[in-house]
């Protein structure tokens, strides 16, 4: 008898039992995902988002794209960036539970033309295609998506039947407020319809290089602390030592407490640079994330401010292979290797922005005096805006400070504000 064979057999049996138990437990913890449902029909359009529902899925993506967490009114809609080019079935990858097990699926879709007008009608409505008129797509009347961006596949949507829930009606109203059809200059403010854009990365690199490291409010707090200490030093020379010590320390300690309470003294490894592009009807917010200088990869979390559109990721080019490090959804999670950068973007309404944005009507430049004065834009930013059909308003190229617009909630990011650029459509 081979010495030790009995213990080996026992060990093997124990290992097999443990594997079986773990397998059964995993299957119990993460039931298989449900079928892939297309709430607006089995259609896709190059460069437009696709929305699906997959019951039981923790995250879904179209192959080589970013992961998407569930969102929407029911918390079960997955808004996915579609491939830039049409053709063939969509290859989905679906993650269930926390076991990181990924299921691959291929779903046949009808590809719609990237150009022209596509009109959605509800199945209850009789579709009457007209020669040379818009392409008509029938969408179901129930189970419709509640995300406005889910309707970006279409250029026109027929009036919704009365049976449509209020959340869907609200999403359609917000979609209409985005300014269709696609020829509109407002498309430049919609990140879910933006193609891969290397020039945006170059522009944001230049913007990050031109952004002060210390936020304006932090600098003001430090100047106030220093000024108060100097004034006290000059005026309280004859006071008792403890009184003078208290008087000198009060303002600096208050500043230090404020820095700690507001997380301004927290040194996160990922640097975020925010650029706001403010048009007369829309605001495009671009957030550039730069990975740690060295060491391990960093993780950033971003939640766009309330009222903002769904956050999108900007691909560098067609072969951008690092999009799987991004998970879109109500909270955007980005894993960044040292030295890598990633751009996120979302749309905001001007009403959500601060006063300077509301007063920036085309041709009527607002006074920048209250916001720190304009400073020239980097040439890369101007070139990127031109590629989107936008031009900076003269005299309002850039206003500094974090006061321009609501800030996103972030974790793991040192946020810097490049400022706001007010733009108009190029003539």
């Amino acid at each position, binding site marked *: 008898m081979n010495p030790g064979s009995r213990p080996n057999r026992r060990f093997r049996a124990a290992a097999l039992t443990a594997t079986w138990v773990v397998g059964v437990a995993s299957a119990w913890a993460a039931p298989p995902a449900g079928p892939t449902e297309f709430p607006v029909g089995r259609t896709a359009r190059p460069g437009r988002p696709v929305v699906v529902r997959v019951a039981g899925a923790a995250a879904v993506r179209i192959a080589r794209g970013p992961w998407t967490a569930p969102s929407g009114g029911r918390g079960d809609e997955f808004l996915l960036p579609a491939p830039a080019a049409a053709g063939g079935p969509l290859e989905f990858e679906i993650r269930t539970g926390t076991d990181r097990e990924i299921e691959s699926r291929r779903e046949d879709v009808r590809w719609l033309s990237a150009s022209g007008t596509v009109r959605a009608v509800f199945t209850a409505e009789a579709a009457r295609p007209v020669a040379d008129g818009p392409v008509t797509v029938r969408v179901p009347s129930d189970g419709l998506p509640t995300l406005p961006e889910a309707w970006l596949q279409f250029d026109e949507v027929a009036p919704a039947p009365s049976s449509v829930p209020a959340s869907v009606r609200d999403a359609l109203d917000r979609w209409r407020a985005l300014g269709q059809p696609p020829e509109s200059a407002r498309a430049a403010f919609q990140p879910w319809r933006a193609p891969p854009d290397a020039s945006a990365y170059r522009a944001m690199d230049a913007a990050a290089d031109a952004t002060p490291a210390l936020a304006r409010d932090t600098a003001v707090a430090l100047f106030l602390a220093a000024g108060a*200490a100097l004034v006290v*030093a000059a005026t309280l020379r004859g006071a008792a030592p403890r009184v003078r010590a208290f008087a000198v320390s009060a303002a600096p300690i208050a500043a*230090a407490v404020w*820095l700690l309470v507001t997380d*301004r003294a927290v040194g996160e490894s990922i640097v975020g640079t925010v650029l706001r592009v403010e048009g007369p009807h829309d605001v495009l917010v671009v957030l550039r994330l730069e990975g740690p200088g060295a060491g391990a990869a960093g993780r950033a979390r971003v939640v766009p401010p309330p009222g903002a559109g769904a956050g999108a990721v900007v691909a560098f080019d067609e072969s951008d292979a690092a999009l799987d490090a991004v998970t879109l959804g109500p909270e955007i999670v980005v894993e960044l290797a040292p030295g890598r950068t990633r751009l996120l973007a979302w749309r905001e309404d001007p009403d959500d922005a601060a006063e300077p944005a509301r007063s920036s009507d085309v041709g009527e430049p607002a006074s920048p005096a209250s916001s720190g004065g304009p400073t020239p834009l980097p040439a890369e930013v101007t070139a990127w805006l031109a590629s989107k059909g936008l031009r900076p308003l003269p005299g309002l190229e850039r206003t500094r400070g974090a006061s321009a617009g609501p800030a996103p909630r972030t974790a793991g990011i040192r946020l810097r504000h490049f400022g706001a650029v007010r733009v108009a459509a190029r003539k």
Partner: protein
Amino acid sequence: MTDGAQRFSWVPLVTVAAFGAACTAAASAIPASGGGARRMADPSISLMAFDAVWTCLLARPGRRDAVETLTLVALGLPFHAAFAGASGAAGAHFAAFAAIAASWSLAALACSASAAGAPDRGTVAGLALAAFGLPLAGYAAAEFLDVPGAALVRASPVTGPILLGRSPGTAELADAVPAVAAAAAVAALAGLRRARRSPGP
């Protein structure tokens, strides 16, 4: 001299406030396009410069009490916190710098307490040696003896915070050990001299 009012020196306080404001102006400016000017806007430069000046003032020889030292600490606190935060400093950096600043402050207070009557030239010399002699010794060890001298450079209250601020995101608490050891040595020297001067029973 026992009057606290006379021992309260304004020069270090004014220096910290003015230098902190200058570093704030540098770190909050829009970075220039040139290499050197651009580097000046990097918050880690402000962090290194401010921390070096601040620590030197905390460790400077001379007579003072704990109230003045604590006032100096409070005055520099927001500047250090803001520059370190903007530089991406990890928690270990804050802990290591706190250990350096505290140990040199205590060493300076120990030297001040030992200076009864005439200024204690021995402890002044010890502080000066730690501040300027250790970095030179570290450089000489690396340059001429091919021996790593980083620990000696880290031990100085002048160059220790500068080295610590160069990589605030990856600093470790162990980086403060040389400075704490050097400060403890200076404090022990001051204690010995005080014991020798004090009259016996």
